[in-house]
């Protein structure tokens, strides 16, 4: 079998968990990831004169919140993930370089690497990743695990239905004995990004001007609902549309975290009006109490008719996703899944999300089944797969499972299909 013990106390492994919203990086054995960088990077193209005064086009990639949020002209924001899988490999390599050089400040050849991947990752992509890690980064050992399995591990389980509501989509993945039941994965493109779009539409309807922070020089205090008084920064470069959009989304994400709430049963409009309001202050000084909107927007996750301007004929709501995934599994393991429902992903942090899912599923699942839903505390839900990876990579019995460099050299990149379920 594989030679040598790689983990243990001496050299810890590095765990990477790439999501469509952020890329989590850290040393195995830690409680939380050491770094959480946006999956989006600014790609800056500009012209420069070299020593012979010849015009050249240069490309510079800005990674990490501090560097990428500086307004620049011709700087396009780009995400290296698409559909939960690594898509832009050039950018991904730059991200890894950044992770090793500027975040972890270590050299890749000393640390085994554990990667998470989505349950629907393609064979070609996982082979490419294996090749990249061994050939370019020279890692001593490598492993990839499905993120749903890691989430189950972070909750101390080997089986359950993992409902992951992330930025781009919500998925339900049945996990049994440490394996993903890949044929029963159900997913739907409703997630944090959709909620953000809905909020932007809601703001536009209410004629609230969303001013991104980079434009604001100063602001004055105003009373609630009064028009804001603020001054614009001078000499801003002409930024790209994608940059402006990204910066606006930052505010919307903050707004979503601050005000949104889900009722624990389907709403009727009257009771929604009676619920307590929640204030939010925009960066330009404008502030307002949000009432029924804060309930109606996230309600779209569970009742698609609340989604504005979205063709909902092909979408599934969150509770449908979960029950369909259960329904596609072998009948003997279904009770096990219903009583081990795990909720993870940043979008599930909306207040009341788990209670609502519990309520809706209780109506859908067979009466003999005991539904038990567990949702860990917020930090663990944001970083569920990473924490599972951190646990797995530091467990003693896992050390013999790594794909070692020798095994890769013997078996080629195809080895990842055989060793990693």
């Amino acid at each position: 079998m594989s030679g040598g013990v790689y983990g243990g106390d001496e050299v810890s492994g590095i765990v990477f968990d790439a999501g469509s919203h952020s890329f989590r990086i850290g040393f195995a054995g830690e409680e939380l990831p050491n770094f959480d960088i946006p999956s989006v990077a600014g790609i800056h193209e500009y012209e420069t004169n070299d020593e012979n005064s010849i015009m050249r086009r240069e490309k510079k990639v800005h990674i990490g919140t501090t560097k990428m949020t500086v307004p620049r002209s011709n700087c396009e924001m780009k995400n290296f993930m698409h559909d939960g899988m690594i898509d832009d490999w050039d950018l991904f390599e730059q991200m890894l370089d950044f992770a090793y050089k500027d975040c972890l400040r270590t050299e890749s050849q000393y640390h085994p690497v554990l990667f998470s991947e989505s349950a629907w990752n393609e064979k070609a992509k996982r082979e490419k990743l294996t090749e990249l890690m061994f050939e370019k980064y020279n890692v001593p050992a490598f492993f990839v695990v499905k993120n749903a399995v890691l989430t189950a591990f972070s909750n101390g389980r080997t089986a359950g239905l993992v409902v992951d509501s992330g930025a781009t989509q919500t998925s339900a993945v049945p996990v049994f004995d440490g394996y993903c039941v890949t044929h029963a994965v159900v997913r739907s493109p409703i997630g944090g990004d959709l909620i953000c779009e809905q909020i932007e539409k809601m703001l536009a309807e209410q004629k609230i001007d969303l001013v991104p922070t980079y434009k604001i020089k100063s602001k004055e205090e105003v009373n609630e609902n009064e028009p804001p008084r603020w001054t614009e920064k001078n000499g801003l470069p002409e930024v790209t549309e994608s940059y402006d959009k990204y910066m606006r989304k930052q505010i919307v994400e903050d707004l979503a975290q601050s005000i949104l709430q889900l009722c624990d049963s389907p709403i009727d409009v009257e009771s929604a009006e009676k619920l307590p309001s929640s204030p939010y202050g925009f960066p330009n000084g404008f502030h307002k109490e949000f009432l029924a909107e804060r309930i109606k927007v996230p309600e779209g996750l569970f009742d698609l008719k609340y989604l504005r301007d979205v063709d909902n004929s092909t979408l599934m709501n969150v509770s449908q996703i979960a029950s369909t995934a259960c329904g596609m599994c072998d009948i003997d393991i279904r009770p096990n899944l219903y009583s081990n429902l795990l909720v993870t992903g940043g979008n599930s942090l909306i207040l009341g999300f788990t209670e609502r899912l519990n309520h809706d599923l209780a109506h859908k699942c067979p009466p003999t089944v005991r539904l038990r839903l567990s949702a860990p505390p917020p930090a663990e839900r944001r970083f569920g797969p990473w924490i599972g990876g951190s646990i797995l990579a530091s467990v003693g019995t896992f050390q013999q499972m790594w794909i070692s460099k020798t095994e890769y050299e013997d078996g080629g990149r195809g080895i990842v299909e055989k060793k990693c379920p």
Partner: protein
Amino acid sequence: MSWAEYVNTSLVGTGAVSKAAICGFDGSVWGKSDNFQITGEEAAAAARGFSNPDALLGTGLKFEGQKFFILQVDDERIIGKKGTNGFFVYKTKQAVIISIYEDGVQPEACSQTTGKLADYLKSMNY
């Protein structure tokens, strides 16, 4: 080398596989380990699984009369489990290799050993 020898040396002999058989797509057992009481019908069901994965998923597969849950099916491999035991079925050009692991044998090791033999058989056009 006879088929039984392949099973005994390359699969069960490594210690990473508890029971194994190599079968044709029609369910004929070409070679198997002595401790594996596989029937022709069970072998044929496993081979059929590759052409009709959806049907497998609801019903599972039976070996020696025991039902295993199906965890994954793709073009070249079926993974199944029953308690702490489980199986891997690899498909080659003309045959399927069925490997069962029991009692603490590492699943990854079983998969790797079986996969290696499958790659070898494929390279020999079997």
